[in-house]
């Protein structure tokens, strides 16, 4: 297992290098510079600013010095927010984004797994169709529609929950977590239904039932571990997706997270911020994929055997 993790981490180095190089080329070839503004910017100012951020150097030189800085963990200063470092902005946005992703994941797991398991227990009955249809709607419903709908109902008409904010008022994390988690809940419901159905048709389940175990016990003790492997495999990419894809929800609910910085950085041509957040998110995706693969191996005896065989 450790060797597996080590090799995967080694593979991550060229991946990150490609990500940095591609992003670097893309941001520098995008039309419009970081300092262009509605009002004409005097040439003296442009010159001063470019010199300050080393943009007056040849591109390859900028690239090399950027790589050097990144190796030392320095993502450089933000162009848009003078005096703020990219690392500082990421650190400022990450807690809210991570917390949101965590709650959304909880929502997704609780709703998704229970709906999926319930559906798999009685396939092709109402207990299957209703949650699965709901899951279909959940997958199709974009968060920019669901968010405002929830706000209208629970925030404005019922006045139960705050309409926006983060850590400002009690309960202000509930609607964002549900909005972001719903799509994933739907996906997890379908995955767990599929996984459970496959497992429930296995011989060892029949044996368990034949031995007289009650159905809930069969599910909890024997079926869940195997049935949820697809869900576990999905957790890594899902968590990375939640972290990187929370922009819409962050905007709807005015959450001071990383997603807003990420998208605004592209609009602002804040080169260092785009690069910094991209590298950061890429690393997260790599790490989470690795973790979920390791978890899947640990859960699945067959895979465990294979990795052992390879190593």
């Amino acid at each position, binding site marked *: 297992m450790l060797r597996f993790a080590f090799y995967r981490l080694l593979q991550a180095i060229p991946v990150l290098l490609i990500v940095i190089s591609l992003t670097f080329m893309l941001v520098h070839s*995008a039309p419009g510079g970081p300092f*262009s503004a509605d009002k004409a910017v005097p040439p003296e100012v442009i010159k001063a600013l470019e010199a*300050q951020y080393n943009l007056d150097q040849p591109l390859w030189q900028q690239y090399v010095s950027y790589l050097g800085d990144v190796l030392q963990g320095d993502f450089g200063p933000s162009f848009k927010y003078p*005096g703020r470092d990219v690392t500082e902005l990421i650190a*400022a946005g990450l807690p809210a984004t991570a917390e949101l992703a965590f709650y959304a994941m909880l929502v997704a797991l609780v709703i998704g797994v229970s709906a999926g398991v319930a559906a798999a227990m009685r396939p092709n009955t109402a207990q299957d169709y209703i949650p699965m249809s709901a899951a279909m709607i959940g997958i199709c419903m974009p968060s920019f529609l669901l968010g405002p709908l929830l706000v209208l109902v629970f*925030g*404005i008409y019922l006045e139960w929950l705050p309409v926006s904010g983060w850590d400002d008022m009690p309960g202000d994390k*509930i609607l964002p977590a549900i909005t972001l988690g719903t799509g994933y809940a739907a996906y997890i419901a379908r995955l767990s239904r599929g996984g459970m159905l496959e497992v429930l048709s296995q011989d060892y389940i029949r044996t368990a039932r034949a031995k007289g175990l009650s159905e809930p016990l069969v599910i909890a003790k024997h079926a869940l571990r195997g049935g949820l492997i697809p869900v576990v495999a999905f957790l890594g990419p899902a968590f990375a997706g939640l972290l990187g894809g929370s922009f819409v929800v962050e905007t709807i609910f*005015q959450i001071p997270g990383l997603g807003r910085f990420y998208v605004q950085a592209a*609009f602002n041509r804040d080169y260092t911020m785009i690069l910094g957040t991209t590298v950061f998110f890429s690393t997260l995706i790599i790490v989470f994929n690795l973790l979920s693969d390791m978890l899947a191996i640990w859960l699945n005896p067959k895979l465990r055997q294979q990795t052992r065989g390879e190593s």
Partner: protein
Amino acid sequence: MNNRARQHAILPLLLLISTLLLAACGSSESNVDQGNRSGTLHWGNGTEPQSLDPHIATGVPEHHIITALMEGLILKDSETLAPKPGVAESWTISADGRIYTFKLRENARWSNGDPHNAHDYVWSWWRALQPALGNLYAYMYFSIENAQEYYEGTVTDFDQVGVKALDDYRLQVTLSNPTPYFLQLLDHYSLYPVHRATVEKFGAADERGTRWTYEGNNVGNGAFQLLDWKINRRVTVQRNPYYWNTDSVRLNQIVFYPTENVVSEERMFRAGQLHRTSTIPADKIPVYLEAQDSSLHIAPYLGTYFYRINTRVPHLQDKQVRRALAMTIDRETISKSILKAGQIPAYAMTPPGTMGYYPESDLSFDPEAARQLLADAGYPNGEGFPATEILYNTSEGHRKIAVAIQQMWKKYLNIDIKLLNQEWKVYLDSESAGNYEISRAGWIGDYVDPNSFLDMFLCNGGNNRTGWCNAEYDRLIADVAPTVKTHAERLAVFGQAEKILMDELPVIPIYIYTSVNLVNNSVKNYADNILNQPSFTEMYLQAEPQQKRLTEDQH
């Protein structure tokens, strides 16, 4: 615990979690109610401020926060915008209108208690004119003698720039020419003083983006001081006990929120989370108007929405063509049916009433005459007129206007117009490189004077971007207007210049902006002025219990 028991434990656990969650959302006091009790104003501020350094910042959100933290020599009356004493308690102007002598208040202090004097201004203005600082508003200083020369490096000795501390409390400013709007400029944050010791503590004077403006470091001379700055969350300021007029300030705190999403911002307002919004979604305006909701504030705004015409494009070089285009835009319809917020149809660049100036313009909506002009230019009934493109930055509002104009030109002139939208920075690039045919634009006056709208079309004006150049226009704006003796004469010169501009039409004015905000009725002394700059030192909060309920029921 066996499996069955574990399973049974899940249900109560879920119940417990949901109870906790529901308990968390019990109806708590709204921001507005709480703010009205404690004197805390909750202000929707648009975006996260880029910088709170008055010599670096450029945007409206930054402006609001900086004016709470700092103050210039002069303040403006929040209704009439007439200059009134700020840090300077009085001033004299020499007979030739070039030398201003300000008497500073001896009781003015920085927010750390340090004395505040005339030398602070000399140093701060020196700093603001350092090119390395990247001050986009350096041109606001250019009416001061030798300021532009110093900034551009042709004068190297700052002593030759027209600013001098006569003693600790007397500041003398010498202008190159009499500049009637000079006092107004002093209330612009780019001319605010900064606290030297604080700036130097965190870096060199001309170093851009040091940490001196951050919480715990920031020192200002305004009515409020920085309490905290949580990135993308809020900026909170609280009353500054050292402010010279602190007894008259009635707000205890102001919380500025980066409310980037205008739809969410409006919902926050309705839920009582904000006292004031930075704007309101266009499609919500009719709803508020119909409900006659008193929280909707619509006021004329010192800005013009217009189209630039690239006069370097062959078929747009003929001013008859440009005139025909300008005469077939039905501005009344655009204003009433698309914009719906009381925008005034514009037939000249300068908003009417700017410092008592009403531009004369013979531009009107006249399709018949326009068709004739187009025929005279060689395109009878639009035949042979090359397909022309309107460039706009991606936005639903700009698209609607462009589509309407596209249809009007098709209907009245029978010409084909294509629409091209570009992302903001790409659009800026295209426009400044002259890589467009017709391009949408907007201009908000920096100060209340026709000059703020007209000097942009000088031949070498950085914001001209149309390729249009007229020697007589340049002469009137750059040479004649600054030197005439009286206000009336000056306005007459602007009138002549604007007549040339509206005859040649390198730009097609479309409408004069309005500012649209939602303001809770508990906010008192909120003055709607044409700069949309209400005064935080005058505002106060007084609860009106009925208001919130009314707002909610009507939407």
